[in-house]
């Protein structure tokens, strides 16, 4: 396609030759943009245009079928004014933060254990990771079986331990704990694998040098291991928060947001608003709010990490 550019020779060098020389001199530039242009064009249509479309719809009252009207920021005000949506948002934050508070330390502890030279650690590692590769929809469908008030295995365990049987569907705390348990169960495996990779990347020489200097076990952990894990912690934290705010399948299939809206989360309500309540305006504006919030949250945590590093 470049041949079309070889038109007229001018001066000592033809345009074509000059072009060739330019390409040679700017080899990196040319190659890079040759590679990236199609990728960026695709990215534009499948990532940027949808985000903008989402934004446009969020200013309308579209119901999916009929012509729509622009309603300005009404949907956004509704999200913040309506107690219902505030509760949905705080539930989501609760699930994301608490599952992080449980899952991250648990992941670190298990990763530290599996980083020892112990027997069968490959097997343990596999077992801890397996939940991560299961299907959310199918596990949720199984949890429904477990939760049955009659002969459900959760109640068999609870009564076996000497407690009173729980009616899981109507007990706010019990249901929230099930959702949290599911999230930690499904998420901790990837935390462990990431931390294991980080731990095994710490050069042995550091520990050896510290031992020569007479540092104890705890000192080595505190002064070498912990600082070497900071980057990974930020990574796990940021991706964990982003993932945690997008919890969907267990809510949609297990609790459907109830009872009393106490387990409803943003993504579930977006899905409900779009496909059940046929209110695309509030659905897309909720999506925009969630996106802005996550962008903000991950920037804050990355900045905090950078400052922590500098300090």
């Amino acid at each position: 396609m470049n041949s079309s550019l070889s038109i007229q020779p001018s001066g000592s060098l033809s345009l074509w030759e000059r072009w060739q020389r330019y390409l040679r001199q700017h080899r990196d530039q040319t190659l890079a943009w040759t590679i990236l242009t199609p990728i960026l064009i695709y990215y534009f249509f499948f990532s940027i245009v949808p985000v903008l479309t989402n934004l446009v719809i969020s200013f309308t009252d579209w119901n999916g079928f009929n012509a729509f009207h622009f309603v300005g920021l009404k949907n956004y005000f509704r999200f913040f004014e309506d107690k219902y949506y505030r509760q949905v948002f705080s539930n989501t934050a609760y699930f994301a933060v608490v599952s992080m508070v449980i899952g991250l330390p648990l992941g670190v502890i298990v990763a530290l254990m599996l980083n020892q030279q112990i027997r069968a650690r490959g097997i343990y590692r596999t077992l801890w990771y397996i939940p991560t590769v299961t299907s959310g929809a199918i596990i949720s469908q199984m949890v429904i079986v477990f939760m049955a008030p009659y002969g459900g295995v959760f109640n068999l365990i609870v009564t076996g331990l000497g407690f009173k049987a729980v009616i899981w569907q109507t007990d706010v705390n019990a249901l929230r704990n099930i959702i949290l348990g599911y999230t930690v169960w499904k998420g901790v495996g990837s935390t462990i694998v990431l931390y294991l990779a980080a731990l095994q990347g710490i050069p042995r020489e550091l520990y050896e040098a510290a031992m020569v200097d007479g540092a104890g076990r705890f000192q080595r952990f505190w002064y070498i291991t912990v600082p070497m894990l900071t980057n990974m912690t930020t990574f796990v934290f940021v991706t964990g928060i982003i993932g945690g705010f997008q919890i969907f399948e267990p809510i949609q299939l297990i609790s459907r947001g109830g009872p009393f809206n106490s387990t409803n989360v943003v993504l579930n309500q977006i899905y409900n608003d779009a496909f059940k309540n046929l209110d695309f305006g509030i659905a897309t504006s909720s999506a925009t709010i969630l996106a802005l919030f996550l962008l903000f949250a991950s920037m804050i945590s990355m900045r905090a990490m950078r400052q922590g590093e500098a300090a």
Partner: protein
Amino acid sequence: MNRNRLFNLLAVLVMASLILTACSTPTPVEKIVEVTKNVEVTKEVEVIKEVKVTEAPAPKGPVTLVIWGEGITAGQLALDASADAKAQYAHMLVEGFQKENPDITVQFENHGWDEELRQNLVNAMLAGTGPDIIVGEGFFKNFAALGAMMPLQDIDLSNAIPGTYQGAELNGKVYGLASFTSVFGFERNCDVIAAAGLDCAKPPTTWDELLGQAEQINKAGAGNYYGYSLQGPAGFSMGSAFRLKVYLLQAGADMSKPDAETGLDYPYFNDPKAIPVYEFLRKLEKQSVPGLAFEPDEGKVYSQLFLGKSAYQMAGGWHVQWAKDTGCTNCQYSAIPLPPGGQAATVVVANVIYGILKTSKNPEAALKWIEYTQRDEVQALVFAANGRIPTTRTALEALRPSVDPATQAYIDLLLTGKNIQAMPQWVKNPQKVWQVYNDFLIKLFTTDTPVKELMDEAQAAAEEAVK
């Protein structure tokens, strides 16, 4: 239309992007794509394309009428016609119609029922992939209000029972007709009642009698069996709200009132006449199988009675066949007990309405199908096939002499058209309104808060939800 212009713009942009990507892909990258993509991949693309082409129904000559049927009829079509009455019904329905209309091929598809069906329908309609005819009971008015349904013009309604198409009637226009329906009756397991030392020949006729008997049975059962099976708010089917609405109607109360502006239903959760109803239900729950109100599997809830765990429950018409099929020899039926000063009432349930989507490509054929389901000879198949009852006056009158007294009572209700209703279809945000009602029921059954207080709270929340 605004929306169309936006879509067109987007679509054109996307197409342009693909063309641009194809053109502007510079030579080195193309080579790499060749290197990384092995030849097999491109071959597979072609294979899949071919499969699609051969499978896509070619729009030539005869018309294909796509019907999204409810599970029973659609599912039975896959079975051999000689298998059982249900399969016979499904085959006769389709084959009879095709014989009369040789140019029309009927294609029944199963896309679930209730919430799942509604979901699949909305998805299909947003995409424009909807069928010609949809089947359902709880969303025709909503869809009609959105302009997605085609009104049935020039159709003869004189023989149809109004209660059965009430769920598809909006502002004077009818958008669908039911092919069969069902009503609620009262079911009891005589083995349990006899074990508790009561006379099974005298079922309770009032709410007080029911409560008294249930209490006695509970005491006698001492944890082995209980007085009643009450389906509560767990599970996400409408099973529990359906039955609670029957009790509400008996007392002259309701959960909704018509919305003047849209013709849809507006929540009315604090009807003062409903207070005694919910107080009764609260007491009844205490006499029910513990925890059952929160069991999500509807089949499990109502099979407790067959298993000898409970004595009484409210049952849909199809329970008669269900009990027979599964060998519950001592299950009997009676009229639903009444409140003091109450009137017999019922709600149409499993009321299978056929309606035509506005996007249908064969509206004439679709209308023919709907008229076909109303014929006497087709309606006559219903009761024997699946225990549901017909929806036309003549078919009901023909059926009446041959059925049990409990069913006769409901046929009479249908024929006189009194106190018979469909479930509400909310003006807005159905998911939120039903969630409010479910939450109200949870509080009703798990706390001691005065009913009035709970009802007012629910009403406030529901009004907020439909704003």
